[in-house]
Structures are given as structure tokens and as C-alpha cells.
């Protein structure tokens, strides 16, 4: 694993701050070719950097061969183009984006996602932890069992189902 990625994964603030400052001006220059305001470009940089941090944390960049800068520029360009399409009100273009399967998913409805976010914050800690570990941290059920101190894997399985049902109820309640 790239040493920088390792540091970012470990949450090394100094490294993260250095990286942020290091790539900023190049990125701003890179996106200056597009019809965007300075604020928009800075915002895109921050968003791209966030995507970088998030994916590094979740282990998605463990095998990254390319330079961090290449990655940031690619994410930035993708987001810039999306933003511009919005501005010009084109229909969404089908862009195949190798690194960000999540960003480009068309079946994820942002409104719905926000609803779920709100419902998540109403969940009890136990349920939140189970779902967090499974969906966000991509942990296997056996691992979650160990992490949360459950005796049997089956218990975790049924717990998770229960929690998902609870989540659904919370969302539907909001919609009443």
C-alpha cells in the first residue's frame, strides 16, 4: 500500500493537511478551463478531497497504483462535468467512471438517501452500530459478531434484519 494512503487511513492530520495544501493550486488550475466560478472550483476541490479521504478510510484505495493527484483530478473532472450539465440542464450523460462506482450510480435517489440519513440518526445505538459496520465498514457478519461481543453469528443475522425493518418503519413514519 502506498505510504501516503496508509497515513490517511490512519487519520494522520498532518499528512492530510499537507496533502490538501499540496494539490490545491494545481487542481484549481486544472479546472480553470471549465466555465466555473472560483468558489465552485474550490468547492469541487474540497468535494474531491473528501471523496479521496472517504475512500482511503474504507480501504478502497489500498491498491491504488496511480498518484493521489491523478485520482483527485479524475474525481474533480467528473464532478465538474456533472455540475456543468446541471447548469446547462442537459440530461445526464452516461459516464463510465472506473474508480467511483458509487458516484455514478443512477439508481441512488439523493432525496431518499437523505431520508434514510435522518432515520439513521433515530436508531438506537446497537442497531446503528450493526448497520454501520455492515454497510459502511463492509465488515462480515462474523467480524461484527466479534466486534460487538455476540455469542452466535445467527443472533447477529436476525438482529441485522430487525434493525433494517426498524429503519424502514422510521422512514415510513416520516412519510406519514
Amino acid at each position, binding site marked *: 500500500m502506498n505510504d501516503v494512503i496508509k497515513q490517511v487511513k490512519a487519520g494522520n492530520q498532518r499528512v*492530510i*493537511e499537507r496533502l*490538501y*495544501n499540496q494539490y*490545491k493550486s494545481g487542481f484549481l488550475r486544472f479546472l480553470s478551463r471549465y466555465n466555473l466560478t472560483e468558489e465552485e472550483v*474550490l468547492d469541487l476541490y*474540497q*468535494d474531491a*478531497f*473528501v*471523496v479521496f*479521504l*472517504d475512500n482511503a*478510510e474504507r480501504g478502497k484505495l489500498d491498491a491504488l497504483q496511480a498518484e493521489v493527484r491523478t485520482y483527485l483530478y479524475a474525481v474533480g473532472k467528473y464532478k465538474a462535468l456533472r455540475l456543468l450539465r446541471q447548469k446547462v440542464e442537459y440530461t445526464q450523460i452516461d459516464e463510465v467512471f472506473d474508480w467511483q462506482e*458509487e458516484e455514478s*450510480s443512477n*439508481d*441512488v*435517489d439523493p432525496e*431518499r*438517501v*437523505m431520508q*434514510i*440519513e435522518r432515520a*439513521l440518526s433515530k436508531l438506537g445505538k446497537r442497531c446503528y452500530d450493526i*448497520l*454501520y459496520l*455492515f*454497510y*459502511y465498514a*463492509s465488515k*462480515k*457478519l462474523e467480524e461484527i459478531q466479534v466486534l460487538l461481543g455476540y455469542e452466535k453469528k445467527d443472533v447477529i*443475522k436476525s438482529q441485522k*434484519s430487525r434493525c*433494517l425493518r426498524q*429503519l*424502514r418503519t422510521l422512514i415510513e413514519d416520516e412519510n406519514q
Partner: protein
Amino acid sequence: MNDLLEKYFQGTLTAEEQAEVDHLLKTDEAFKKEHAFQRQVRQAFIQQRRNQLKSLVKDLEKSSSVAWYRSKTWLSIAASVVLLVGIGMYFYQQDQSGYSEYFQPLPNMVAPTVRAGEATAGETTKAFQLYEREEYAEAIRLWEQQSSLNYKEIYMGISYLATKAPDKALEYLRKPIQNDSLSLDAYRQWYLALTYLELGDRREALDLLALLAQSPHPVQAQASQLLRKLE
């Protein structure tokens, strides 16, 4: 169905199972819905985390645009600039006391002129700008008007020294610097020694120089050099 979805999210689908999932996504509406829902749950967690990260990144942005002369990076650059300039690099001037040979104004390290021609410089910055342009009398006048300002004394002392008013310089260079975040006190003592020299007070000067030559100050080398020359 749930088993398949479980494996999907854990990333443990076999090739066969993957094919089955693809098939179900096209044919089974209930499966498709549940699959979409769980993907959205994942997306919700990711979004939450990214919102947190966005705040963090915005803080990074704020701290990176702090006035650069107050930033840590600049202070370390300043320190090395002073070392490079080296209080010991001088034109040689014939002088008995040895003072002129060694006097070079301390570079402005407190409020550098960040942008040339910045119209809205504060009074402090103006004073330092005058100092940098070697308009010492004007700088002194401005500084006198300002109340408390850290490092004012040392630069005023140096300015008086530069304008051949060592008795006034003495007044300002005598007092140790409080809150010496830039570690300029050694320089203060150096200029104090030069002041004593200029006043003809060799004994005081030599004592001070001897002290400076002993400990690892930035001025240690200069102090020993001058000491040797005078003795």
C-alpha cells in the same frame, strides 16, 4: 434472497451467485426493491461520513489562509532567512570601535510587507515598512505613537542605533523581550552589546559578548568573532 444480498454487500458472491443476482435484478421486483433500499442505506452512511469530512476539510481551508506571516511555515522560513543573511556578513568599514563593521539592521521578522504596495497596511505594518526602507526616524515616530506592541522595543532600539543615537537605543534594548515567540532575545543582546561599544562602554560590551559566545544562540559565531577582535 436475504442470503444473496448479504453476500453481495460482504463481497462474497461466487460467480454463480453473482449471475443469479443479476438475473433476479431483472426479473424479481421485490428483490430489486430490497437491493436498491440496502444500497441506499450504504449510501446514507457514506453521505454522513462525507458531511463530517467536508467540515474537516473546510477547517483545513480556513487555517491555510491565515495571514501567512503568522503561519508556522513562514516563521521557520524567517528563521532560516536570518541565518542566511547572517548578522556576520558585512561590508568592512574602518572604525575603531568595531561597531560599524558589525552593525546590520535585523531583518523585519514581525510584520513583513506581504504584498508590495498594499494600500491598507495597518500602522504597525507601516512602521515596519519604513524600517525596511531604512527610514528609521519615521519608523521610530510611528512606533512611538503605538501603544503596546510586541517586538517594538528591539526594532526601535535598532533604529536608534542606526541613526547614531545609542543612548536612546540603550533605553530600548536593555529590557528583555516578553513573550518571545520568535526567539529574538539573543539578537536584542547582540545589539545591546553594539550599543555599549558605540557608547564607549567596552567592559559591558565584552561581558555581554562573552555570554553570547558561550551559549548556542544564532549570534554565537558573530559574538565570538567580535570578542576576539576586541581583545
